[in-house]
């Protein structure tokens, strides 16, 4: 990739110096308007449109009917499916975070102790991230399969836990975990990579000084390495959390929210409301809620992880 840019080059503080001399207003517009227009059309405008639509009742054919905040009132007070989906989305989020962040930290930490094969491990570990969700959903459907016996039930049988073998995707108690695991599996490598790169950047002399002082590995990790990688950890947590909150493909393809609503997430519920029941107003209200949820999650993560510095 060529030489990486030099780190920590001091940025010029004088404001005027940040502007190219000889630039004109028109040239700024020429460069700024095209990207902004595409972005506004496909990202910003839809946000505004969703806010607007969420105040109406509309099936796409008959006239739009203004209902004020009724969609939101219905969502919070009269819709059990909404709350079930919200609870499921939280469960999905928790499982993804544990698998991705916990896994990332564990594997990245182990990787730094290896002497050989680091590149190979990184490449192999990242492999699932390049596979489409449709392929992943198919793969896991076969892994969970009960009849004929899939990979998971076969392994359980071999290790003597054959009594646990079951149709994972049709049991209401296991289905949520079963649809969350593929999502966790898929991006585990990505977060591992990011955390690993951050761990490598921890100066060796800090670690050596601690080793001389007979700190054990846990102390070295928790007191030295982790504080050092905290900024990257915040970014990683935010990425993992927002990706998990918008998770859609795998539950939609594997179970379509079923059985019943056992694996319904807010995203799949919103999709069905919009494109199966063509209730655009209510679907928009749910998608506004999903955006707010993501923003709140980012704020919370930033606040919680940041504060521990003190």
């Amino acid at each position, binding site marked *: 990739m060529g030489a990486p840019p030099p780190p920590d080059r001091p940025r010029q503080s004088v404001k005027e110096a940040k502007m190219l001399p000889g630039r004109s207003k028109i040239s700024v517009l020429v460069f700024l308007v095209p990207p902004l227009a595409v*972005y506004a059309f496909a990202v910003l405008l839809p946000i505004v449109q969703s806010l607007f639509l969420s105040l109406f009742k509309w099936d796409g054919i008959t006239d739009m009917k203004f209902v004020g905040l009724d969609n939101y009132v219905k969502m919070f007070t009269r819709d059990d499916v909404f709350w079930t989906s919200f609870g499921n989305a939280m469960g999905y989020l928790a499982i993804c975070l544990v698998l991705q962040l916990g896994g990332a930290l564990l594997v990245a930490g182990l990787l730094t102790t290896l002497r050989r094969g680091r590149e190979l491990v990184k490449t192999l570990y990242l492999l*699932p991230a390049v596979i489409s969700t449709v392929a992943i959903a198919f793969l896991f459907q076969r892994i969970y399969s009960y009849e004929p016996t899939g990979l998971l039930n076969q392994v359980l049988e071999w290790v003597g836990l054959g009594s646990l073998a079951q149709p994972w995707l049709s049991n209401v108690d296991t289905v949520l975990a079963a649809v969350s695991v593929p999502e966790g599996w898929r991006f585990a490598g990505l977060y591992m990579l*990011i955390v690993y790169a951050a761990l490598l950047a921890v100066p060796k002399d800090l670690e050596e*000084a601690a080793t001389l002082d007979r700190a054990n590995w846990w102390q070295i990790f928790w007191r030295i390495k982790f504080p050092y990688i905290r900024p990257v950890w915040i970014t990683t947590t935010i990425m993992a959390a927002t990706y998990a909150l918008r998770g859609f493909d795998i539950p939609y393809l594997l179970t379509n929210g079923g059985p019943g609503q056992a694996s319904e997430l807010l995203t799949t519920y919103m999709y069905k409301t919009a494109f199966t029941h063509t209730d655009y107003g209510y679907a928009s209200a749910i998608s506004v809620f999903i955006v707010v949820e993501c923003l709140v999650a980012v704020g919370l993560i930033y606040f919680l992880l940041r504060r521990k510095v003190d």
Partner: protein
Amino acid sequence: MTLLTPRVDRKVPAAPAPDGDVAPRRRGRLHAHRVISSTLVTALVIMQVYPLVWLFMTSLRTEQDFASSNPFSLPTEFTLDNFSRAFSTGNLGLNIVNSLVVTLGANVLIVVLGMMGAYALEVLGFRLKTFVRSMFLLGIIVPVQIALVPLFIDYANIGLLDTYQSMIIPLAAFSLPMSIYLFSSFYSYISRETYEAASMDGAGPYRVFGQITLPLSVNTIVTVVLVNSIFIWNDFIFANTFVLSDELKTIPLGLQNYIGAMGNVDWTATFAAVCVTITPLMLVFLVLNKAMIYGLESGANKG
């Protein structure tokens, strides 16, 4: 960084009390540690990759072999019949072409618009740039689902439903923030003096862009394209929402059709179809894995 040094001095003496000759025992423990962690890493990598190995192995089995043997045994005989059945039943060739069109189109937009936006924000500069930058950053957090209903309605109004553009535009727009961000952080390392010298020689903003910024951006372009191609090539949600006709279906949709039609009829051919669809990107990844890994790392570690 300097903030951390006092922390180390303060905390580390709290380590467990020293006991006797530490050095030899520590060396032994270190060795044991290394063996344990190698074993653990190997086990985790096998768990991570085995599902894919199984996928490829099954696609090479005969149907009888698949039905009779357990999922961990090697195929008793290899066959490519599954692949020929997969190609003759499905539309996989056409799907691959469609995916190439969408991936190429979206990447061109992402690169060109990303460079332009970053140039305006980072090099030219203007009064509202902090505001515009934060508008773009918002797009990294906002989930794509918010755009589905409004875009579906807009597309229906302007006749863009069921076109390549209907997939390319939102895919590019939602990748644009990260692209602008990566180009910006690279442009901020190009020294001001370079630009000032060029301006002294009478080069306007367009010539500076064409002669200085663009030629220097090649590495970042590769990074941006590699990282975004993964998400664009695999996009399911936009394609599933905006595309209806079979002639425009990309690989994820074509594969979904195939699985729906044949998934429970012809198991081994379906495995082969899945393999065909994941192989192109996987090959690119295996060949270019250094560049791709660098790109994915820099996306987060510069933040």
